[in-house]
């Protein structure tokens, strides 16, 4: 708890209420008023975490609950308008931070935004090794829809079976992408740990971020494809 308090970047270094100095605590040491989080606060810092990709979700939840108890508007109903506004804004930031970091994919996408200034949504890209498979799937999907609209049950069933097989191939690919991503999580975290010793390892970091971005982009493509197949078969 203490360590979080020290690391929280606040909007101001002076209490908005009594003007005393505040050194990162989210309650003023003098008047105990809640302090607004900085608009530029990053989600890792908000939840008192280093920018690592492997997160213990149980302690993340504990921290989230702890901060919720500090900021939630339920505890500010009878307070001043300013305190209520701060509570609302802080809670909104906290909730977004928790939601983003809880999910590993959203977490790494967010890290890419922070570290490499990536766009909010990473566009999908077809995995090169699956190029032929993807073309086949497109064909099967068309066949399946055509057969369905013509009421041709036999060819719809055949195309359906082919799609189900293709789905397995895609799921295997996604699993492979995710397992490589997990390896990169480890590599990234080691680089972050080393950084605290002496060097920043910019080249290694950049390389890792680039590969993660590429994997995510392929994963998005595969996921969309799977979604299309599932929707067609339902």
């Amino acid at each position, binding site marked *: 708890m203490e360590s979080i308090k020290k690391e929280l970047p606040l909007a101001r270094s002076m209490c908005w209420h009594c003007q005393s100095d505040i050194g990162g605590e989210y309650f003023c040491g003098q008047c105990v008023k809640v302090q607004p989080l900085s608009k530029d606060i990053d989600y890792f810092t908000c939840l008192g975490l280093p920018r690592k990709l492997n997160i213990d979700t149980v302690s993340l939840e504990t921290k989230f*609950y702890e901060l919720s108890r500090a900021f939630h*508007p339920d505890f500010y109903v009878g307070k001043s308008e300013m305190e209520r506004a701060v509570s*609302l804004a802080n*809670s909104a930031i906290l909730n977004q931070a928790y939601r983003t970091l809880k999910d590993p994919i959203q977490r790494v996408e967010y890290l890419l935004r922070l570290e490499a200034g990536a766009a909010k949504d990473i566009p999908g890209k077809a995995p090169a090794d699956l190029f032929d498979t993807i073309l086949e799937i497109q064909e099967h999907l068309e066949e399946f829809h055509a057969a369905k609209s013509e009421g041709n049950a036999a060819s719809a069933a055949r195309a359906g079976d082919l799609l189900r097989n293709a789905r397995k191939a895609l799921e295997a690919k996604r699993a492979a992408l995710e397992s490589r991503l997990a390896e990169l999580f480890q590599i990234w975290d080691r680089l972050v740990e080393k950084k605290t010793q002496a060097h920043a390892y910019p080249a290694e970091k950049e390389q890792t971020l680039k590969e993660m971005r590429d994997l995510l982009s392929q994963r998005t493509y595969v996921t969309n494809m799977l979604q299309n197949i599932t929707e067609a078969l339902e």
Partner: protein
Amino acid sequence: MARIVGIDLGTTNSLIAYMKGKTPTVIQGPEGRTLVPSIVAYTPTGILVGDAAKEQLVHNPEHTVYSVKRFMGKGLADVTQELQYFPFKLTEQNGVIRLQFGNKALTPPEISAMILKELKARAEAFFGEEIRKAVITVPAYFNDSQRQATKDAGKIAGLEVVRIVNEPTAASLAYGLQKRKQGTIAVYDLGGGTFDISILKLKDGIFEVLATNGNTHLGGDDFDRRLVDVMMLDLKAKHGLSVEGRPKLQQELRVRAEQAKCRLSAEAQATVHVPLPDSKGEYRRTFSRAELENLVNDLIEKTLAPCRQAIKDAGISATDVDEVVLVGGSTRIPLVQQRVQALFGKTPHCELNPDEVVALGAAVQADILSGGIQDMLLLDVTPLTLGIETMGGAMSSLIRRNTTIPTSAKEMFTTFVDGQTSVDIHILQGERELAKDNRSLARFQLKIPPLPAGVPRVEVTFMIDANGILNVTARDVRTGEAQSIEVKPSYGLSDQEIERMIRDSFVYAKQDIQERQQIEAMNEADLILRATEKALARAGNLATPEERAAIQEAVASLKSAMTSVDHRAIRAAIEKVDKASYSLAEKLMNSTLQEALKDKKLSDV
């Protein structure tokens, strides 16, 4: 801090509760009943709410409004399919439904406000103090317009709505407080008009909603209609009778159907008796439980898809749910319990009173907000995805469904034409791809200083607060100044309209009181006039000529006072008649006494 009460504003019944020490308790009415039927009736002698209004359902169907919650935050087009079932008249103005109520066309929030006022009065009588603040519950799946309409109803009733709480989450608070359980629970809430499913994680006093889903147009009312449909066909076939143009018959069928449905939860069969119009005798129909189940099976089935979606969104499987809690009167139906049990693979809990648990939870939340309970915290979610319409009519999502609230999203806007001074933003809620398939919440007009195209940069913040209600603010990024935005709600009341309704509700209340006083004074005047005339006719000879003249003068002035609408003048004239006829009345009394005694022996007296 001022007292905050908890209110369950239900489709069929409403309740008001408070925290009695550490126990949430429902406030009872004068007859010991906790439920206030959510029914409002307009009668020539005044407005009735609750049980008294319920009695008007069959006799006064056109002016007795029920299930008004189904119309909250809606336009007429949203409810066309069910219009045939309602005997009262509905119209629309500025995207808001109006209900014909006496000679006024009132909005659903105004009708709901009458129910809230009744609850408020009940609590005020109980505490002997004015109640100004309340927590009000809504179905979890209510959209922004429906939540806003509920908040408006509170305002019109003279209540500050401190918090809008979702019904299933409120139920979980009452449940969690009582059981002190940890783990994952599912709350299945099937009420009179709405269905909700919420999946929550209970840990160390935190009630975290993982996912919620539902249908705000599915409930016990729909079950009743299935029975009504059968009876309508029957009546046509056997008696050649149609309910069209017969609102009393229509309402009678609905009321009987509801009663039969309730009986069938405990009994194997139930018989409906309906008196036919024009003394055509009686219509009788026996329903078996199996028949009811057959009729409503698909409706119950319709609740299961939202359950599965919520389980999926929560990132768990059905077997991960530790406990299933049933809420809402419709969960008394055995088939509902069976289906829920089959879905989750465990016996659902129904030991808490399904009618009261939501109000009790609202009282718990009210206590948390007043600083009473400090170790419990509810973290709820927004039930529907919020987005804006983009070029080409697609919806671009800003805040995904099941995001913990409060939450916010920012979006940057600029101009496409030199000197453009405004940008229109269309806000939507829903899960579909195209804007037109989602719910339109509001249109905003963003004011922008005239500059070359692409230069202005206005950041718009969409904030969903802890009530699940959207607030929009805009800021010019270059200057850092707040930008004004003009809001046009698609299905809601403007601030000015609400202000007018608050004023009207006072004026009407005043008018109502005056009308009642007038009626009472007139009744009393009638009574005294008849009595005086009778006395003069029977015993005029007992009065002196002066007395007689005085009486006649007083009677004449009372009659003239009665032509006015001033109840005070009538009262004053009544008093004059009273005084003038006092001695005559006395003499009359004595003589009557003597008459009575004349024929009797002393011993009989």
